């Protein structure tokens, strides 16, 4: 209909003299419309999701980053703990392609090191006389690949004798870029594991409260209220501060994940509860009850699938909270501790202003954190819109 173009114009008076045949109208369904009407709910969601460009881009970005943690060893130019004692706090080197007007392919210049005797500052300057070409699929630091076998292949490294610190080095001369690539492994998985935990907690507790109502509901509501009235980060800090120092890093990792999840389930549980409270009054639920289904079956089989898509969307939106929680805790030195390397642990070195002033490249781990968090927010936004495809 072109209502807009006719706006203001006088409408013609029109009466068709042909007999009205209702059958005719039903046939006027184009193949596209037919496809739309016959599509399953998930199909519709997928279509709606793909229309949200930003969400799709974010989703692809996240898939790629999550895939990268499978092959961090290969992607990182150096191993996680390789120390280059001659290059402590070396600034980022840049990749060049053209040397004195002639094309050489990607290469880096050598670095000259001098100690400024006045303030004992290390000064690194580019040495234009030395050229080190970059090599792809080359041999570098040896690593153990997921216990399958040892290898020394890297995606990119530099000719023998040269160094390639694209994001500089830290106080022990470790390559910051490599450490960021390795840090993704911890930072990203902690988000997924944490959300899985808090999601299960929310389903269980919210499900019980919503289905049974009454006293169970009342107690759960009060507990959620109490937990929510704590400022989240200080409580996280307090809980992780009491973890015993003697625990192994792996145990600390899981403990931190559990702590993050333990305080994160409340919002989701509330959503589950309020949805269940209204859904359990539906007739199909009554029918299931009359046919003798147990509460467990009714909740899991009949009620939850009805709004699972919403829940997944909200769970996606709470992944960034958990990733940020870990980053904040480790940043303050209360969360994960070296040798475990996460983005927060890396940022811990950039805690004070003098470091930022002297070695600004140490705040580079901020970039992946912000990117991942923004991506999760967009993805969650897109999923939430898609979760209701009939709207």
């Amino acid at each position, binding site marked *: 209909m072109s209502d807009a173009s006719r706006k203001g114009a006088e409408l013609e008076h029109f009466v068709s003299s042909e007999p009205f045949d209702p059958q005719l109208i039903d046939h006027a369904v184009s193949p596209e419309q037919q496809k739309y009407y016959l599509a399953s709910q998930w199909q519709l969601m997928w279509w709606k999701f793909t229309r949200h460009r930003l969400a799709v881009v974010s989703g692809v970005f996240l898939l790629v980053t999550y895939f990268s943690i499978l092959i961090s060893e290969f992607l990182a130019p150096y191993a996680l703990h390789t120390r280059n004692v001659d290059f402590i706090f070396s600034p980022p080197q840049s990749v060049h392609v053209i040397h004195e007007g002639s094309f050489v392919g990607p290469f880096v210049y050598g670095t000259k090191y001098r100690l400024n005797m006045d303030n004992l500052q290390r000064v690194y300057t580019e040495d234009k006389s030395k050229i080190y070409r970059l090599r792809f699929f080359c041999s570098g630091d040896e690593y153990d690949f997921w216990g399958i076998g040892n290898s020394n292949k890297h995606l990119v490294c530099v000719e023998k004798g040269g160094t390639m610190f694209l994001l500089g080095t830290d106080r022990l001369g470790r390559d910051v870029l490599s450490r960021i690539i390795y840090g993704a492994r911890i930072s990203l998985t902690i988000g997924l594991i944490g959300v899985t935990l808090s999601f299960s907690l929310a389903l269980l507790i919210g499900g019980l409260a919503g289905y049974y109502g009454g006293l169970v509901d009342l107690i759960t509501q*009060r*507990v959620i*209220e*109490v937990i*929510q*009235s*704590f*400022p*989240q*980060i*200080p*409580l996280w*800090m*307090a*809980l992780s*501060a*009491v973890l*015993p120092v003697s625990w192994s890093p792996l145990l600390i990792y899981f403990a931190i994940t559990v702590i993050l999840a333990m305080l994160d389930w409340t919002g989701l549980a509330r959503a589950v509860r309020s949805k269940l409270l209204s859904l359990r009054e539906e007739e199909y639920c009554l029918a299931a009850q009359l046919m003798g289904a147990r509460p467990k079956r009714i909740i899991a089989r009949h009620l939850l699938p009805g709004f699972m898509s919403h829940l997944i969307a909200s769970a996606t939106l709470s992944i*960034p909270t958990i990733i*940020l929680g870990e*980053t*904040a805790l480790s*940043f*303050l*030195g*209360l969360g994960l501790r070296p040798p475990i390397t996460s983005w927060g642990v890396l*940022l811990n070195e*950039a*805690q004070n*202003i003098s470091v*930022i*002033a002297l070695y*600004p490249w140490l*705040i580079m781990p*901020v970039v992946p*954190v*912000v990117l991942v*968090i*923004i991506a999760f*927010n*967009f993805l969650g*936004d897109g999923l939430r819109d898609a979760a209701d495809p009939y709207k």
Partner: protein
Amino acid sequence: MVSYIFRRLLIMVPTLLAISMIVFIIIELPPGDYLESYVAELQAQGENVDPQHIEFLRENYGFGDPPVQRYLSWIGGMLQGDFGYSFEYRLPVTDVVGDRLFLTILVSMATILFTWMIAFPIGIYSATHQYSWGDYGLTFIGLLGLATPNFLLALILLYFANVYFGTSIGGLMDAEFIGKPWSLAKAISVLEHLWIPVVVIGTSGTAGMIRRLRANLLDELQKQYVTTAKAKGLAPFKALVKYPLRAALNFFISDIGNLLPSIISGAELVAVVMSLPTTGPILISALQSQDMYLAGSFLMFLATLTVVGVLISDLLLAWLDPRIRLMGANTK
């Protein structure tokens, strides 16, 4: 109204009790007794341990009593203004805290005001110009603000301030006022420094509030009474301000409950990065050295601040919106 306030206060009591229990459990969590580790630490530092001092502490804080009794005396002490003893500073907690509580409240309040001042016009603009370029742009910026964690924003700001202005933007007052009693000059200096942390802490809250205000106002604008008002020829400005905006305004106040915990959380973190003299840095150093009484009091204080903030917002809301005031009364 009076009965509403009374009921609301009554609900607060069990919440605060539950919070205090959780805090006490956290205080008790580290293995061993503080005094043992305290004495061990003193001896490790090669200091003399004054047995009288230890005995005084042991008696005063009832180590060796069953946990329930200790909890009761802890709570009782807090009600009388005795927040326990900081083992790190060897001072009563109240002496350590001093000005910092006040500054924390000041920063939080200023942040809430800032959030309101920014979110209000932008939210209204976004809702009235839905799907315009301005709306898209502001929504995008808002999403960025929502996603950027504020302590990282503080780090980045510190870096740029250092690169471009060569100054440090940390702190909450000029150096000469630190530790001095309050005066007009000090207050002015605080106000001059206040805006940077306020902007940093307020960004994500503002972005979230813009989104919620926009959604809320859009809901309100689609209601039939607005259509009726417009159809009857009410000026667009009046049709916006007179009713829908007032209805959306309620939400502004009820949103404090959402805003306050995140602002306080953010303030603690940003305070560490920007070295503000608020509770943040002390809380963290207390946690790092497992000085649990000090940490526990801070935690209790922050949670109470949140609960009281929510209470105030609820009361304001009840005062503004008769539906809330009367709803509870009818059912009881």
